[in-house]
């Protein structure tokens, strides 16, 4: 049996013929399994969607209640039969509700990782290692230059800077789903007990995290806050907001950006970042390699990111590796106006 009988990389995303469904399809599909709520993976307009309960909630927040014809919530590890295939969703540790897709068919096991990380994250369930024959891994940070430092240490840098420049506001660019809430939870862990201010675009998702049981402490709206209160404050906003007129309301802001890309200086400089915070919701190089080994897979497919390096590494380990070169993933919620324009 070939892996391609179970899974085919198509322009719309990964297609499973014996189950007749797509995983994270980029265009409206009759039947979709969705790994997590980032906008490049979770799109509106599918006929039927299978996903975890938080992912369905997040999609409803983003697209409205009627985002799909029908929805089905899968409990972690519970098996759903779609066509000839037994499908189950398992925590991926990426953002709240994020899941890997395990497909079992005629004794063959394939896992599609979606986006994942192995580092601890107080806002979501930890990644669950699964044994499989075919592993489809993301490779956003698939180069050995990407080794994420402990996220708490990065947040401590932010806290120290806010203490040092007590008259300036610290604007932290973070993706609205997952990263923003993780940074807030980490700030609490680092002992920051003052209010955290929030850009309007993040309010609903943050409210959802809190309602779903994530402790974030005193979180307030940045809009309308007293300018004096914002001196020395930490404000979380979408990365794109840092260059907008919105940012001018803050006293002499320090531009911070929480992203795995900040590990490369040129990326930080290019965005005008003064305080880069290397905090990522994706596996770094060491985590990618360790996870691939842990799955025991004999075949590795690699999607969005730096596919070539990981494929090379896997080949030297005797794995059959294939870069999928799927287009359309990897800009999770960047909120980058220019990038969206060009993609249109």
């Amino acid at each position: 049996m070939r892996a391609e009988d179970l899974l085919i990389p198509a322009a719309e995303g990964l297609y499973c013929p014996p189950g007749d469904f797509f995983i994270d399809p980029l265009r409206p599909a009759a039947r979709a399994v969705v790994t997590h709520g980032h906008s490049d993976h979770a799109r509106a307009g599918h006929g039927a969607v299978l996903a975890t309960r938080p992912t369905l909630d997040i999609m409803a927040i983003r697209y409205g209640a009627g985002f799909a014809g029908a929805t089905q919530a899968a409990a972690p590890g519970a098996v759903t039969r779609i066509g000839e295939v037994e499908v189950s969703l398992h925590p991926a540790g990426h953002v709240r509700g994020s899941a890997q897709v395990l497909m079992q068919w005629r004794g063959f096991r394939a896992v599609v990782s979606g986006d994942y990380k192995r580092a601890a994250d107080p806002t979501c369930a930890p990644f669950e290692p699964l044994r499989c024959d075919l592993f489809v891994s993301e490779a956003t940070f698939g180069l050995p230059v990407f080794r994420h430092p402990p996220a708490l240490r990065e947040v401590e840098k932010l806290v120290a800077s806010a203490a040092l420049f007590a008259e300036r506001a610290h604007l932290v660019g973070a993706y609205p789903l997952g990263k923003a809430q993780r940074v807030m939870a980490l700030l609490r862990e680092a002992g920051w007990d003052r209010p955290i201010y929030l850009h309007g675009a993040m309010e609903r998702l943050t409210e959802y995290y809190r309602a779903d049981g994530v402790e974030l402490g005193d979180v307030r709206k940045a809009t309308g806050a007293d300018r004096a209160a914002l001196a020395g404050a930490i404000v979380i906003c979408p990365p794109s907001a840092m260059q907008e007129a919105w940012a001018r309301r803050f006293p002499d802001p320090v531009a911070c950006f929480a992203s795995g890309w900040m590990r490369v200086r040129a990326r930080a400089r290019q965005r005008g970042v003064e305080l880069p915070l290397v905090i990522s919701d994706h596996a770094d190089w060491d985590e990618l390699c360790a996870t691939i080994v842990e799955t025991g897979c004999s075949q590795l497919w690699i999607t969005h990111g730096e596919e070539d390096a990981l494929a090379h590494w896997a080949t030297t380990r005797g794995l059959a590796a294939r870069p999928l070169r799927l287009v359309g993933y990897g800009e999770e919620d960047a909120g980058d106006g220019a990038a969206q324009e060009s993609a249109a």
Partner: protein
Amino acid sequence: MNRFAELLDRLAFEPSRNGKLRLMTDYFSRRGDPERGMALAALTGSLVFAHAKPGLIRALIEERVDPALFRLSYDYVGDLSETVALLWPRAAQAPAEAGEQGFAPTLAEIVERLSRAGKRDLPGLLAGWLDALDETGRWALLKLITGSLRVGVSARLAKTAAAALGAREPDEIEEVWHGLSPPYPDLFAWLEGRGPRPQTQDPAPFRAPMLAHPVEAGDLDGLSPADFSAEWKWDGIRVQAIRAEQGGRAIARLYSRAGEDISAGFPDLVASLLSMSGARFALDGELLVVRAGAVQSFGALQQRLNRKSVSARLIAEHPAHVRAYDLLAEDEADLRERPFCERRARLEALIARLDAPALDLSPAIAFAGWDDIARLRLEPDHARDAAAIEGVMLKRLDSPYVPGRPKGLWWKWKRDPHVVDAVLMYAQRGHGKRSSYYSDFTFGVWRDGAAGAELTPVGKAYFGFTDAELRALDRYVRDNTVERFGPVRVVGAGAGRGLVLEIAFEGLNRSTRHKSGVAMRFPRIARIRWDKPASEADRLATLEAMLPQV
């Protein structure tokens, strides 16, 4: 080293000039001698030790990391030092084994060891330090040791920060600088009011240059043409050529505009200066390559730049030349306070007296009004060297020679660029600020091929766009790649798809090296035409019509 690395790291991310000055002045005031002096030397490019070649650093990393992974990483990061700093494996042994005193080495210690180290000691020394330092320390060390410390700080800015220790002007440091050597204890003592002003022993010092303002719309209104002198703006590099004598010995020196001593790269000019028996002067002019009396392209001059040594053949094929336009000192006299017209008259007399083949005068342009200048700027009547003229310079006849860019004394008025619409064909990742993004773009225009219209590449551009546009272009390249050749991505382009780039450039030459037969000078992306279909981009015939007539 870790403190210095932290400084460099913060400098690299600090966008404002004032912020950089604050960071450096703060560092100089907190750190003692010799550490801060070594830091000042590093920031001004004044440290002398045999730099590690990139090959040595590659060899070190390839012993530790799969070469293919190194290559992919380097292609992504775009900077050797940073790539190695990020890739360097965590030291297996305790860091204590590495540094001389059992911990991370200091900058002064590194510089001192390097100055004593032989070539064969270098790899072991470097590997030990890399094991002992953290990622920022490794990055800073590699930058230092390869002689490529670029953190957006010029030598001038570092000196300005040091001058601020004693509320002094940077020019005061500049005047004594060439008599000093690292770690500058006398300089810091003077700046902190603990010692006398250091004596300059240099008989051929650099003098900070005077710069011109670009002419913007309306700038010339209300100015009287009769108050100004005009000359061509040459497309070379600005130099100071100095001949001095000390103890009966002649000294000749060439400085770049930034005060860097570039004499070693121009033995032909140095020999010519030395042969001018008895003359003592410091003149300001343009370094050009002049062959058979005609100024050669900037490309020809580039062959001579940034070389530590030059072959006789290179000198013969690309003879260096100074075209003088100002005289800063002659014999004992410092002329910088004198009006331009007086300096110019003395310069003309000096050049005539010297009568040297490698030195001539940048001619004055005769003009009656600003309209003449506007026309000449576009169509220089200096027929032989028209291609080497970038525009015109306007200098107030009564202007003293003021270092920096004083208001209203000198103006530069450049030729306007040409513009064509071209189609993006290939992309590669860039270096420096643009690294890790697809940011080096090859573009083409249409011509008739065997099977109908086809694109032929006409140039490469890697600047002219904003940061947001760079991210959009990177995304476009990744989404529209149709083929890859190593690091090069072929971007889908044809009648039905493709991205049009409006390219601005300074001039066009015939070229046998390019398939299209034309080569652009200083092409840059003026606008991204997301809106324009590729089929409406320009044709090669449009470019051919712009070629200079032979």
